[in-house]
């Protein structure tokens, strides 16, 4: 095992315990770990955004074009708009960033409307419009699905007071929603426990393992 690897495992174990100390109570050691994490994630983000995005998509095609390729001058426009975004830190020029955000956010919005309708809304709607049958298993499955979807949508329908029949349907909707949230609850517990197991596996196999060889 190389020096760097061994050193890495020990530092990782130390940082793990720093964070675990929060279980006792909020303390300076935990705060230290938290701020180290913040600094590292900011620095990490900086490098990844630069190398994987700004450099490879904007700077390289313009400044270091491939042999035989022309410089991609049109990229000046997004680079300038990107600079506008960064100008937000200077209050006097902050308004320039509105052009960049207008292009970016409205563009995403324009793409979202047809794509979300075609990609998710309609397919989910059509998938609910299935027959009750031909076998009774299909019929029951489809009945549960249809009642669940219908009642849930009624619960989130705000133009009718929840009284009488609407109230009853809304109530069925709530039961469905609660069963679904229960499933999500169980699964969320599972996720958190998995993460803990992952840390224990690191401490047991990697850290203690590095000591016993």
């Amino acid at each position, binding site marked *: 095992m190389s020096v760097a690897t061994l050193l890495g495992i020990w530092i990782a174990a130390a940082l793990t315990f720093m964070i675990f100390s929060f*279980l*006792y109570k909020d303390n300076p050691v935990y705060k230290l770990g938290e701020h180290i994490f913040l600094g590292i*994630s900011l620095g*990490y*983000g900086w490098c*990844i*955004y630069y*190398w*994987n*995005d700004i*450099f*490879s*998509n904007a700077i*390289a*095609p313009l400044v270091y074009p*491939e042999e035989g390729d022309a410089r991609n001058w049109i990229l000046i426009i997004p680079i300038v708009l990107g600079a506008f975004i960064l100008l937000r830190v200077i209050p006097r020029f902050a308004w320039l960033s509105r052009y960049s955000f207008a292009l970016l956010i409205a563009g*995403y919005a324009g*793409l*979202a409307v047809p*794509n*979300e309708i*075609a*990609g*998710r809304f309609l*397919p*989910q709607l059509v*998938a609910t419009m299935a027959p009750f049958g031909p076998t009774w298993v299909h019929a029951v499955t489809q009945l549960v*699905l249809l009642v669940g979807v219908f009642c849930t949508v009624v619960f989130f329908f705000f133009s009718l007071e929840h009284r009488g029949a609407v109230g009853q349907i809304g109530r069925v909707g709530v039961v469905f929603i609660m069963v*679904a949230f229960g*499933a*999500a609850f*169980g*699964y*969320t*517990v*599972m*996720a958190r*426990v*998995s*993460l*803990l*197991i*992952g840390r*224990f*596996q690191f401490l*047991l196999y990697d850290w203690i393992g590095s000591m016993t060889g």
Partner: protein
Amino acid sequence: MDRLASIILNLDRRIIYFIVFLCVLIPLLHPLQLPFTPTQEVRDAFNDIEALEPGNVVMISCDFGPSTIPENYTMLQALLHQCFRKDLRVIALTLVPAGAALGSRGLREAAEFEDTQGNRLYPDLEYGRDYVYLGYKPGGTAVMLSIGQSFTDAFPRDHENRVTSDLPIFKEITALADCSYIFDVASVGYPEYWVSYASERENVPLSVNCTAVSAAQYYPYYASRQFRGLVGGMKGAAEYEDLVGMEAIIGRIPDATKGMDAQSAVHLFIVLAIIIANILYIRQGRQEQRPEVIS
């Protein structure tokens, strides 16, 4: 009895933490190896990949960060071994910044895997021809749409700064539609966007491995076949490891499978805690139970 109840309900949290600690530690040290059978959701994903022809391309998006390594990274390994064993080609990328280094490590670990004798498991695998790691791009849906038209336009350089248009795999595979399958290994909300912006548009089937937090939320997509398979959380990863036969490939029990006993133990403890606490709560009469505000 009431005293016992109040002791249990007001148990010091550090005692509870200690029990959780033991519930994780003991099964990891002395595993029971409780058997489990893969669920249909996981089987569907596995069978789809298994049915692909050698040479087909699987696009894997590694949309997860370090906080879900136990759930996603183990799955990524199982999936990559399945692909390489079947001679499928892999194009990997990520849409979350923290995934950039993880995806790179994951792909390298599987592609250069050595068995206990130190022999490469896939000696003929060549970077750029059989697998490629494109790295991270911000923009989410913009990236999906962009690779829908051209991989090399969206990713002019790969994670390690090689020019992608020089790589042999992109001579044949220009856009997402040329891939045979999309597999999203994700801890965040991207699987839903892969549906609208890639899978449905380009008509490429999609399967998802997600963190258990979002698994329940994704069942409508599994029900409508927009997700061909759904591998939820570490349990799903363990099932996938079982289907791929990871134990035989890597020569030891893989991580997710190994963690299953601890998972069972902690779940059992939490469920018992909920049941006991609620029985006591109901016994004491619901209204009184509200802890008194100490003035």
